[in-house]
């Protein structure tokens, strides 16, 4: 059994680049804080794809362990971030980031 699947690593690099760019586009394009959060998840996943691809091509399991840790970090980030978002919604009744540009009101 071989890890080789006949797909050049370049393809994965382009895929990860495209996904990362879409994530960046979403952060710049939207004003809803929840969508921005989701786009950050998208960027994290683009990096994950690249890590797994290189881990398979270099035959080194370390990359996949990194992906594990990134998943844990993403879960922690989502938990705290969404809690902050809910607190902000309580105070301002909106998730528009243009309203959230001041730290106190």
């Amino acid at each position: 059994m071989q890890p080789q699947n006949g797909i050049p690593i370049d393809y994965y690099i382009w895929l990860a680049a495209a996904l990362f760019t879409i994530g960046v586009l979403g952060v710049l394009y939207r004003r809803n804080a929840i969508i921005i959060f989701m786009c950050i998840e998208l960027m994290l996943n683009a990096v994950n794809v690249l890590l797994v691809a290189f881990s398979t091509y270099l035959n080194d399991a370390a990359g996949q362990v990194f992906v594990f840790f990134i998943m844990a970090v993403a879960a922690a980030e989502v938990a705290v971030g969404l809690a902050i978002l809910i607190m902000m919604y309580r105070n301002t009744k909106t998730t528009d980031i243009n309203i959230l540009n001041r730290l106190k009101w």
Partner: protein
Amino acid sequence: MTLNLFYFLSFLAVLSALMVVFSKNPVYSVLYLIITFFTIAGHYILLDAQFLAVVHVIVYAGAIMVLFLYVIMLLNLNRESEPHKSNILKFAAVICAGLLLVVLVGSLKGTEAIVQQSGKAGIGYVKTLGEVMFKEFLLPFEITSILLLAAMVGAVMLGKSEKTNDTI
């Protein structure tokens, strides 16, 4: 066959990622993001990282996206309450992202592709991952528990309401 599968999954991933950004309703965005995560899990399987694919589905599609959906339901976000950016800002955002893509592609274009290493098979098995994690990456593993502890405390601090039956 494998290459076709790769093209199909990539196309689906990029398309649904674009739909996450451009769909008006936040609930649709979440659902499209779930599709993206499933296709990424498919990519992991193609890359022979079976365990990671399963974990990815459990953590992202199963837990994190449910949390997102919860928040959207909780905050009562609808199409009408969706904030809009002005067209010029949207245009600027597209230009910026396009430039980033050009820079990424341009910087990676001339690079030499790595030669595939031949070695022991089954990198993506749970057993191999566990061995590496508990031998080489023990400290990050323990620190992860502290991170999760901090996230727990933070979420409870922020989310716990003083009043009972608080519906936001």
